[in-house]
Every structure is written in C-alpha cells, then in structure tokens.
C-alpha cells in the first residue's frame, strides 16, 4: 500500500490559541510515520455549530473550497479538531450524495478557478493513529510510559453522526481509551462519559452560562471517577475545559490533547508541548 500523504488542516483554535497542539501533532506524526504536508491557503472549516447554523450554503461553499484545495494538491485531509472533522467530513459527504448541491457549489468555486470533483477523504488524527498506525506500533514507540489516571473526552463530532462516521460505537466507544492506555496510562470510568462539553452550537459564544453547566457536570463526573488529567481530541473541547476551569471554583485538572499526551509518551521534551498557553496549569 502506498504511503498516504495528508494535508494538515490546522483549523482555528489549535494554531491560534493552543499552538502546542499543532506542534505536538507535527512531531507525533513524524515519529509514527504519518506523512504531513502543509495545507496552504485553507480557511476555517467553517465551524459546524455556528457558521452552519447561520447559513448552510456559506458553510458548504467555504468547506468545499478547502476540500477542493486538497483535491487539487492530490492529498487527503488530516484534522486535529472535531469541529473541523465534523464540517469537512459532513460537507464532503453531502457533496458526494447530492449532485445538485455539488453543481451549485461548483458554480461558486468557479469564480475562483476551482472545482470540487468529490475526491477528498477527510480523516481525524486520532482515527488515523488508531486505524492506520495501530496500537502495536504505538506501544513499541513509547519511550516514556505514563502513569496517569485519565478522563478520556471523545467530544461529539468525532463519532457522530455515526451512520456516516462509522468509527466506533457512539454510545460506548473504546478507541480513545485504548489509545490512551497504550501509553501506560489508565482510562478511568465515569458517569455520563459521552456528555457534550457544552461549547458547541454557539453556546459558548452567546450563552456561556449554560455551556459552563455542561462543563461543570463533566468535571464533577471526571473528579468523582478518580481522573487526574483530561485527554481530548478537539481543541474546542480543550479550550472549554481549560478556560472553563479558570472560571469555575474547585477544579484544576490539566487538559491535554491526544497529540500532547503522545508527544510526552514518545519522549519529546515537555517544552515542545506549548503548555504555557494553557490556563489550567499542567503539572505532570
């Protein structure tokens, strides 16, 4: 099988708020043999909860521009964010299923000399590691086994809608837990594990008090379950937990993106993780 090459889709929150996630992803991919190329000229995915809620046509057209740029470069897309994954995967799916929509979108793309033919595959960093690299290879690459009690946080748009994502059981998944445990860490059981972080759908930007209620309930369940660190696969969930704990009293659970956890386990210097951007201190 030819080695896949991926355009590294950065999105917004990772490069512009938690650059350590971008850096860790680059380092971890290099160490595990995932070939990343820069995704030049991409925009926001655009965000599924907000931009799609405002205007579906703008959402799908801007997503199609990103998909078309990757297609033109002859590479598939790798995302590190559930929002980006949700938007780009779902938009690619819709454009694949709906010829009329594809035609309409291509009329818009023609204005900038682009055409989307429907050939871009959208992947998430976490499932590429799980499905393509595999846990055996990861376990062999661990240089710094981690003795941590982890609350795994899948987020919503990674597994759902599950009829099109088809990655794992959306109610009781195990993929991320296995990835975390491959580092030597323990994934701790907790109540209501698949509950949303609260940030999505425009809640954080307009109704942040409600968003924080989701966050607090999750944190309580994590703490009650005995976890000492949160591992997420989405910079927006990451931001909600990291910044949210600063606003809430009584919680100081470090938040790591899977790429940062893996960077640590693969023996990279802690300075390379960009932890100074975190508001909840990460003392490991």
């Amino acid at each position: 099988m030819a080695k896949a090459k991926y355009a590294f889709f950065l999105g917004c929150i990772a490069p512009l708020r938690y650059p350590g996630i971008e850096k860790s992803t680059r380092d971890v991919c290099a160490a595990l043999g995932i070939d990343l190329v820069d995704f030049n000229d991409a925009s926001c995915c655009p965000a599924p909860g907000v931009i799609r809620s405002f205007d579906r046509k703008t959402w799908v057209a801007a997503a199609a521009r990103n998909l078309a740029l990757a297609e033109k470069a002859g590479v598939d897309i790798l995302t590190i964010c559930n929002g980006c994954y949700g938007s780009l995967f779902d938009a690619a799916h819709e454009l694949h299923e709906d010829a009329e929509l594809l035609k309409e979108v291509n009329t818009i793309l023609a204005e900038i000399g682009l055409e989307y033919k429907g050939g871009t595959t959208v992947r998430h960093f976490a499932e590429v590691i799980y499905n393509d690299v595999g846990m055996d290879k990861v376990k062999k690459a661990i240089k710094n086994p981690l003795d941590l009690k982890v609350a795994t946080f899948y987020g919503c748009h990674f597994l759902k809608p599950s009829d099109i994502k088809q990655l794992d059981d959306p109610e009781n998944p195990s993929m991320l837990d296995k990835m975390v445990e491959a580092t030597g860490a323990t994934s701790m059981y907790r109540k209501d594990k698949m509950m949303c972080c609260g940030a999505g759908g425009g809640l954080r930007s307009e109704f942040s008090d409600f968003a924080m209620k989701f966050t607090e309930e999750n944190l309580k369940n994590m703490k009650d379950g005995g976890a000492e660190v949160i591992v997420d696969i989405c910079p927006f969930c990451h931001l909600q937990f990291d910044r949210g704990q600063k606003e809430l009293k009584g919680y100081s659970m470090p938040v790591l993106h899977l790429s940062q956890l893996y960077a640590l386990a693969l023996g990279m210097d802690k300075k390379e993780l960009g932890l100074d951007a975190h508001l909840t201190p990460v003392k490991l």
Partner: protein
Amino acid sequence: MTATPNMEFVNDIIANGGESVNMCFQCGTCTASCPSGRMTSFRTRRLVRMAQLGMKDETLNSDELWFCTTCYSCTERCPRDVAIVDIIVAMRNLAVASGKMYEGHKKTAQSLIKNGHTVPINDEVKAQRKALGLPEVPPTVLASKDAKKDFDKIMKATGFKKIIGE
C-alpha cells in the same frame, strides 16, 4: 396565547435541509437524551412539534432554538431516523435570514469574514508559535492575501455579510 399557524413553515424547513421533520411521532427520546434539556428550558420534542404545527414566529424567535450544542445524542437515538440536528439548523438558518442574530454569534461570523477564521490571531500566540519553532502566522488564509481574496469571493457569492445583517 393564540398561535397563528404558518403552514408554509414546514416546507421552508424541508427546503433548508430538515427533510425528516414530518417523520417525528413525538416519542420524546430526543428530549430524554438531550444534555441541554437537563440544564435549560430547551425541549427538543416540543420544538419539533411546534415546527410541524407551523408555529413559525414562536420557534424562530425563541432563545431555546439556540440552546442545542449540536451534540447529535437525539439524532443517534431517534427511532424514526429523524435528523433532528438538521431540522434545528434549518430553523436557525431561517431565524438568521429573518434578521434574528445574537451579538455573540454575530462577532463569530464577523471574525470569519474578516480573518477567514472564527478567532483572530494575536501577538501572544505569535510569540508562543515562534517559541515552538512554528511560523508566527500559520500557513492559512492568514498568510496569503491571494487566498484571502478567494475566500472573500466565496463569502460574497453566498451573500454571507448580508445574511448576518452587516
């Protein structure tokens, strides 16, 4: 309170991506599965029923329409395969098109138009990026005037500025 039904409303929802709205038979699995419904006055089943009954003004002007995080718990569990999130998105699109937009949401939309990203870049993150050996400005539309121009053309073609009331 007397509601004035607008029987075109269901068709508007269907035309905007909520094709399955009439499939709902009101079992309430969605409301029972909704994390937002546990903390807010949002009731998923109620919103879908109001849509079916043509209660256009009542739904499009309700804050509850915006209390969904799009987590898809309802969609996953619906025994009738109703794509509930798509119905909510369709109604939100109709609300925005009718001029209903919250300030916090408008700010996010304005950032997308201005930056091509939902959050702006700042000096602090530029310094953090530099310290990590990353380019100060990521290689996205932020780093290319031509790419941003193309992005602007897409926004212009869809009329996004006008849609968000700019």
